[in-house]
């Protein structure tokens, strides 16, 4: 009787152990599944350091694209890199301004100049961006009279 009792308890214990193992595997799989879902959304995310690195190298078109990728991937709430994007857009408008001016399309050049002002107003961190914006302005607008 005692051995039969022992045997029965054994089966129950094994069953509970099996259920526990299955539960642990299920929890791990669920964790993996949700992290895979989350990583799909994070595919195109860039962090603050990436923006700073690009800014240091003067790669403004890349900054703009990274910013748009983050926006499309809902990363705007994680890192505030809007001033980097404004600086990149400022650069783009400066390029267009010079481009239109050289082509003789002064009205379009003036429009680009206005946009440059708008983007400049969005930048508050003068310590980081001030000198660089001045440099861009000098580089593209010198001699245009705009």
């Amino acid at each position, binding site marked *: 009787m005692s051995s039969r009792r022992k045997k029965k308890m054994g089966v129950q214990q094994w069953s509970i152990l099996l259920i526990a193992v*299955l*539960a642990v595997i299920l929890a791990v*799989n669920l964790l993996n599944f949700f992290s*895979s*879902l989350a990583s799909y959304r994070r595919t195109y995310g860039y962090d603050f350091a990436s923006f700073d690195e690009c800014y240091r*190298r003067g790669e403004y078109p890349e900054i703009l*694209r990274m910013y*748009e990728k983050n*926006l499309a991937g809902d990363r705007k709430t994680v890192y505030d890199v809007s001033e980097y994007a404004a600086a990149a857009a400022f650069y783009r408008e400066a*390029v267009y301004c010079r481009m239109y001016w050289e082509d003789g399309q002064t009205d379009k050049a003036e429009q680009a100049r206005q946009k440059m002002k708008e983007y400049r107003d969005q930048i508050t961190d003068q310590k980081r961006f001030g000198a660089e914006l001045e440099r861009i302005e000098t580089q593209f607008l010198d001699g245009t009279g705009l």
Partner: protein
Amino acid sequence: MNCRQCGAHLRIRDRFCPYCGAENLDARKHQEEMERYEKEFRRTKSRVLKRSRQFQGYTLILILIAVFAVCNVAVLLAEKNSYRIAEWMENSEVNRKQDTYRELLQVCESEGQYERMAELNLRLNLYQNETLREFQPVTEAAYYFAEAYACLMKLTDEHMEYGYETESDLLKRLGSRLEQFQEAVSPPTYARTEKGYEGTHREAMEDMKEKLELLIKTCAGVPEEEMEGFWSLSEHQRSVLIGRGLNADE
């Protein structure tokens, strides 16, 4: 039944003969059998009840194991297809917010925010939505425009670092992006929506084309006369032309 001693008629519950007093052996045997049956019945009943309780316990355990096993298989399958599930979820979201995305794309298109158009399309697979499919050609063109613009700026702006790419790499990439841009803005051949090449989409494409031409002229220094028939050149010829313009500038 009758008494074995006097032959009198006896009932089953009579333990002794009421006439001669002899013991009724059949009644005793009957009593013993009844007791044995009773005992066996009780034993069988308790065994059945015990088995039934055991069965209930095992059934519960088996059900639990089966549920966990099925859940595990389902989650494993879901994990293997997580990319598809995420895509499906995103497409459903795009379908729900298609009006918002349409407005956003229209604003980007009218204000010349081509980088945003390209990234939105890439990130959210907007072309999979039936009503947003008309934006596919212009967003595709916007992507190549942004790529070409980045290459041109890297080649022409001395303040920008080349990174790991050399000048010839960049020229090659620029040539390839211009070719892809040209393909993206070309009129439809077959199985492509014509709506995507008309109206505001066409205007945006023309604007991108004009900007690229002007950038090549003003930044890369390609002379006006050499820009004639620029879009009919091959990918390699375009790279060579821009490279020549850059070197002439230097």
